[in-house]
């Protein structure tokens, strides 16, 4: 009997369980069928949430309190129709069973998004319109109920691309508490097709605590952390205004440092009735470098973009302020002004050697920048300070990834000018192509190749960011440029024709030093004042247009001296050798030696007659020395057989006359020197 009863009960239990399972399965299936039948309604509800059209492939009910949306797609409407704004493989919505049973209310408790992918880059979301949408979505999620959102492997493109290759991967966990407090942690990883193995190094962790309000968000704490970067900030977004304060360190702090809290945060906390927290303690290492303190940001969201009203910070004791507008309608329009020591009174600021004003004005379209970059600064050349301006008008400037640690920079054309001491110098650079290599976090090296007028230019250099001012060194080769075309940069070359090549080496540490060599080959000097005077004086018209085989010199410019050494001019008419220095106090010193060729002597009846009289003299050479102030130079004809012979020959009155003529000529030549 007992055995029979046990068997019966077992069968009954088995039967009941089977029926129950079947019933549950039927219920689940029915729920799934029911949900799918209500797909359009669910799509409509979600569309209202996201304020964009939402489409779902299939919906599953997942016991006991979850709904899984597969193939969720958010669509964006524009002139060309619908475009996929975002799609997610799997979205799981978990709801409160208690709320559903007790209050017949569908209350979400968890949202899980797996691999959402966006393919559209629309910077207009950074405008007032985008901001309003964002706040709207967030507010719709604030339902006086805890809500946890997990976003896993979200992919956002860095720029519009057919096949996603360069993008950002975001992992995020967001906890929305009942009273609107939001806690969020996560990471952002930049993935570049050129350097996939560096993704881990590019990982940026974030930690956010804040409170969303009807009109924005109060940021209690926003931390960003990477290998060599640690940002600690706080602020608020209220209406159109975004304010942020904080500091950025090159490593995570480990000592004690008290950050100043903005007063408005205290007021807000007081308003919300929260207890005031003690000032944030940040611990800073003594060996940290390139830290940014006193970060202050005030950004206004405007209809077509953002207006940066003030972004100020202190970098290595140098206060910097950024202001300007970025408009996202059509091509992106930029107008940004970056200034160091912005609050210093103008007279002191103009004499501050660390002062600079940088302005970027232009448009970005198809990842290309067209516009103007202008830099005003105080230059110190040969111990003299001068206000200088460098301006580059760029066409089609763009960056492109090349390989591991390398970035390409290219532009079609740049008209670069420099205004120094009221003199304007300019050059035209075409088809510029540079490779920027980031050797480590503190330095980068640059190799470039470009057209320069009708010739070319190539160079290599490096910039070390380890300290301010940055350590810069460059080596540049100028190849076969028509010398005369460079007269816009070097006025002396306006009368020099021929192909110029030059090797230039520049470094700004320990002191500024520019040196190199230049040579001009197969050209002519057209009506150079000095040779014009010689031509008239000795009746040698060929000196007015003096053809030469080669002109060469070595040059050096540093804080103490601007020097031309080993000057040589090799021509059939004459040879010239010498040197010329300008010192920091504007004093010059130089010696030049000029030897007339026999061919030239034969062409001058005046000199031939003179040489017949001066029997002992076979060559005509002028060795002269220069001294004094650059624009008021003294001149001395140094002793030579020719000079001594001539001096003996000339009567005193004629010698004085000749001296006066030469004095006038020298005064005339030097008075026009720049």
């Amino acid at each position, binding site marked *: 009997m007992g055995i029979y009863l046990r068997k019966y009960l077992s069968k009954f239990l088995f039967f009941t369980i089977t029926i129950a399972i079947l019933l549950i399965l039927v219920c689940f299936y029915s729920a799934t069928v029911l949900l799918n039948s209500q797909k359009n309604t669910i799509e409509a509800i979600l569309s209202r949430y996201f304020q964009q059209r939402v489409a779902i492939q299939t919906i599953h009910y997942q016991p006991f309190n979850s709904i899984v949306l597969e193939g969720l797609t958010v669509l964006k409407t524009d002139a060309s129709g619908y475009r996929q704004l975002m799609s997610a493989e799997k979205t799981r919505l978990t709801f409160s069973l208690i709320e559903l049973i007790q209050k017949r209310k569908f209350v979400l408790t968890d949202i899980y998004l797996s691999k959402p992918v966006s393919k559209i880059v629309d910077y207009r979301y950074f405008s007032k319109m985008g901001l309003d949408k964002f706040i709207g979505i967030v507010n719709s999620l604030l339902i006086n109920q805890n809500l946890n959102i997990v976003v896993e492997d979200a992919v956002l493109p860095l720029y519009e691309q057919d096949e996603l290759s360069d993008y950002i991967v975001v992992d995020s966990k967001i906890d929305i508490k009942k009273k609107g407090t939001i806690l969020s942690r996560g990471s952002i990883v930049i993935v570049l097709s050129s350097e996939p193995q560096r993704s881990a190094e590019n990982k940026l962790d974030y930690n956010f605590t804040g409170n969303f309000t009807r009109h924005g968000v109060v940021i209690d704490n926003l931390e960003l952390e990477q290998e060599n970067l640690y940002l600690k900030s706080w602020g608020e977004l209220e209406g159109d205004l975004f304010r942020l304060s904080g500091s950025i360190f090159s490593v995570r702090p480990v000592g004690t440092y008290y950050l100043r809290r903005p007063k408005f945060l205290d007021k807000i906390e007081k308003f919300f009735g929260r207890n005031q927290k003690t000032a944030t303690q940040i611990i800073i290492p003594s060996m940290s470098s390139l830290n940014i303190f006193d970060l202050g940001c005030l950004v206004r969201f405007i209809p077509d973009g953002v207006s940066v009203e003030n972004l100020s910070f202190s970098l290595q004791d140098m206060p910097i302020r950024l202001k300007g507008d970025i408009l996202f309608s059509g091509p992106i329009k930029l107008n940004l002004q970056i200034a160091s020591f912005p609050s210093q009174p103008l007279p002191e600021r103009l004499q501050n050697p660390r002062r600079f004003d940088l302005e970027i004005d232009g448009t970005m379209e198809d990842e290309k920048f067209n516009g103007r970059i202008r830099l005003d600064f105080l230059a110190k050349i040969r111990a003299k300070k001068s206000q200088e301006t460098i301006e580059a008008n760029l066409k089609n400037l763009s960056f492109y990834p090349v390989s591991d640690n390398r970035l390409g920079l290219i532009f079609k054309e740049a008209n670069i000018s420099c205004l120094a001491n009221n003199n304007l110098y300019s050059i035209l650079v075409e088809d510029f192509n540079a490779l920027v290599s980031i050797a480590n976090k503190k330095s980068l090296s640059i190799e470039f190749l470009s057209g320069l007028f009708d010739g070319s230019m190539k160079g290599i250099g490096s910039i070390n960011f380890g300290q301010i001012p940055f350590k810069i060194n460059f080596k540049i080769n100028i190849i076969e440029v028509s010398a005369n075309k460079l007269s816009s940069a070097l006025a002396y070359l306006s009368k020099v024709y021929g192909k110029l090549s030059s090797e230039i080496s520049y470094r700004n540490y320990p002191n500024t030093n520019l040196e190199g060599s230049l040579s001009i080959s197969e050209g002519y000097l057209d009506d150079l004042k000095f040779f014009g005077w010689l031509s008239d004086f000795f009746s040698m018209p060929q000196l007015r247009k003096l053809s030469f085989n080669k002109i060469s010199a070595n040059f050096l410019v540093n804080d103490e001296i601007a020097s031309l050494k080993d000057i040589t001019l090799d021509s059939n008419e004459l040879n010239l050798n010498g040197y010329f220095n300008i010192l920091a*106090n*504007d*004093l010059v*010193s130089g010696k030049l030696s000029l030897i007339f060729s026999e061919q030239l002597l034969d062409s001058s009846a005046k000199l031939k007659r003179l040489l017949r009289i001066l029997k002992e003299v076979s060559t005509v050479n002028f060795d002269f*020395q220069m*001294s*004094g*102030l650059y624009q*008021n*130079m*003294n*001149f*001395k*004809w140094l002793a030579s057989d020719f*000079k001594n012979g001539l*001096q003996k020959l*000339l009567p005193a009155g004629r*010698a004085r006359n*000749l*001296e006066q003529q*030469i*004095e006038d000529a*020298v*005064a005339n030549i*030097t008075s026009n020197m720049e």
Partner: protein
Amino acid sequence: MKIRSIIILAILLLSLFFARDGYSQDKELYNKATKLARDKQLDFAFSYLDMIVNIYPKSSFFENALFSCGEYYFISGDRSSAKGIFDKFIALLPESKAKPFALTYLLKIAELDQSQDAVDNLQKEIISFKQVSLVFRDFKEYSYLSALNKEYKIVYFIDRAEIYIDGDLFAKIPF
């Protein structure tokens, strides 16, 4: 008629004489000053020169008188007054041939005051006072005789300027 013409001429000459009386006064003061300077009576000479500077600023002797007032103060060791006078001299009389010597006095004062910027600027001003071209000569020189009877000379070589007072080297500026 003849007598009448003579009388008119005499009146004209007399009126001219009296009209030039003011000018003569400064000349007289200047002459007295230079005579006293030759007799080494520099204090008395200065008093007359100072009167010219203060009473006859438009006099043709003003230039020499002003320079020598500065010269006197420098000799007396009153550097501050000397500097004031020479600064005024350069501002009022930038074309004066005594300018390089006034600059040299200011240079000496700046050296004594250890004011390096002023030294550098004054050296440059002295160097640029004359642009010289030495064709058949090794130097050019410019001289000036002051109201205190001192003979100044500046000699420009290609690489230096030398300033002498009464034949003694007072300053040398290499360049």
